[in-house]
């Protein structure tokens, strides 16, 4: 665990020293801000609907931010040859992956928390439950965590960051679009596909302010699955 935290700390410094972290945070804030302004001030919606729509819109930027933050994590190390330092140190591959994941999660957490003033503005002229806000943000973090793990997996299998982000985006899009596929097939397959979809059924409860343990477990499982995949890719590299 210590090694994972050590790697996470180094990666956090790397985010601070490169424009990527700041650019992703600024981009997410800008898009979320425009979305919130449009929903909150130009549409005739109830306060709770504004919050729901804000969380719905922020889920898109959170997924995109997760992919962008994670694309460099392993692909860049491989490109620059620094992965050898980690590979020849007395640490496990799972610690390398966990450290990288934690660093991106912290940056995403900062980016997400910086949007908190937007739902707070609803309290000025409206009324929503704080629980709804908290559950919505928990959903965003769970979704972001899954997106980072998918991005990390893409970064583990690709040599360049561009390829990494394309592969990750393809996996993420496929998982999001499972709900659309589910609509065109018969039961019980449709229920199965719908339950696997990254966004639709599994994110809706968070958007509505309902804490669904099944959905929490789903996002934890997706995150674990892709982190394990990234670890196995690193392990397999030693046998090549």
């Amino acid at each position, binding site marked *: 665990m210590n*090694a994972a935290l*050590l790697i996470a700390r*180094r990666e956090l*410094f*790397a985010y601070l*020293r*490169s424009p990527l972290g700041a650019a992703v945070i600024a981009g997410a804030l800008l898009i979320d801000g425009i979305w919130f302004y449009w929903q909150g001030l130009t549409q005739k919606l109830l306060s709770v609907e504004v919050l729901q729509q804000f969380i719905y819109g922020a889920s898109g930027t959170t997924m995109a931010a997760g992919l962008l933050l994670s694309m460099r994590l392993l692909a860049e190390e491989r490109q*620059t*040859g*620094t*992965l*050898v*330092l*980690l*590979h*020849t*140190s*007395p*640490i*496990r591959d799972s610690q390398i992956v966990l450290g990288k994941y934690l660093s991106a999660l912290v940056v995403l957490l900062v980016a997400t928390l910086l949007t908190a003033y937007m739902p707070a503005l609803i309290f000025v002229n409206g009324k929503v439950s704080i629980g709804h806000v908290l559950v919505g943000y928990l959903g965003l973090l769970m979704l972001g965590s899954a997106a980072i793990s998918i991005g990390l997996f893409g970064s583990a299998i690709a040599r360049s960051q561009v390829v990494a982000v394309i592969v990750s985006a393809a996996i993420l899009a496929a998982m999001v679009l499972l709900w659309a596929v589910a609509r065109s097939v018969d039961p019980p397959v449709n229920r199965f596909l719908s339950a696997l979809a990254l966004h639709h059924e599994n994110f809706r409860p968070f958007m509505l302010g309902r804490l669904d343990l099944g959905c929490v477990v789903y996002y934890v499982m997706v995150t674990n699955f892709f982190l394990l995949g990234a670890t196995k890719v690193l392990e397999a590299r*030693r*046998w*090549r």
Partner: protein
Amino acid sequence: MIEIRDLYKYYGDRRALGPVTAEIAKGEIIGLLGLNGAGKTTTLRILACDLLPTSGTVRVSGHDVVSAPEEVRARVGYLPDRPPLYDDMTVREYLAFAARLRRVPRTDVSRRVDEVVEQTELGDVMHQMIGTLSHGFRQRVGIAQAIVHRPAFVVLDEPISGLDPVQIVEMRELVRGLRGAHTVIVSSHILTEISETCDRIFVIDEGRIAWAGTEKELSSEFGQGMRIDVTVRGGAEERVLEALRAVDGVQSAELAPPSEPGEDVRTLRVSARGDVRDAVCRALVGADVSVLELVRRRELESMVLALLGGGESGTRRRAKRRFDERREAPAEQAAAEVPQAEGV
């Protein structure tokens, strides 16, 4: 200290290494010598636990690289051919990070970094970003990260690659300075480097250890031969080679093409048994070929090339075969070829 038994590494169907069996004693500096693609880097990557062997065993201080890789890695410092450096960190930050990764206790990190900075003479650039360092300093930082945790075994892959002459001398001193505190294995295809630095030499050829021993042992086994580079002007190729065929002791000769088109100055590479320099000179002058320079190549290089006779590059092997075939051909046929060659 290090035991290697029947080690093999395959990349797909291609055998990159094996069988390799060797033992390295504590405190030794071993030179791994071989042509490009001979298997040096694969061997070093396996020793550093960056790559797993296809079969065979490698033990470092009794720990197996497959079953106990973390124990091995804690005892190994590795500098790959491209130093694994983070350009966005300062030298000090990077070395502290490497030390913590290699299990140096938090309280000892600062002291260890100071020691290694002094040892590798990085004091002037300690607070500089790695991305701004010259190639020589980057290599030094690479060595510093490999020894920051005081490993029992240091693996250096081509540490002098790309360095200028002054930096080469400094790097040589640095590697020599590791003697005693560490067991070191250094790879290079620069023969002088190995002979200057190492206690024992492993010559790797086509994935196998073709020979292992000290330079002295190598000399007594293969030192009878000699390699000479002769810079000549004028004379058709056949006439030059014909003149050399008549010299007793010459084993092979190869006339390199001119360095520039239309140039008349060429280099003649001659392998021989014993010292044939004066006889070669006389033969060439007798054949009306101007001898501009005659240089005896370093003994170690000659010996290793003799040792790698079977593993020489295609060009060298073909040149040797051509020379031998012509030597064996009837004298009259060779004589008949001379005017033709001159005509060309």
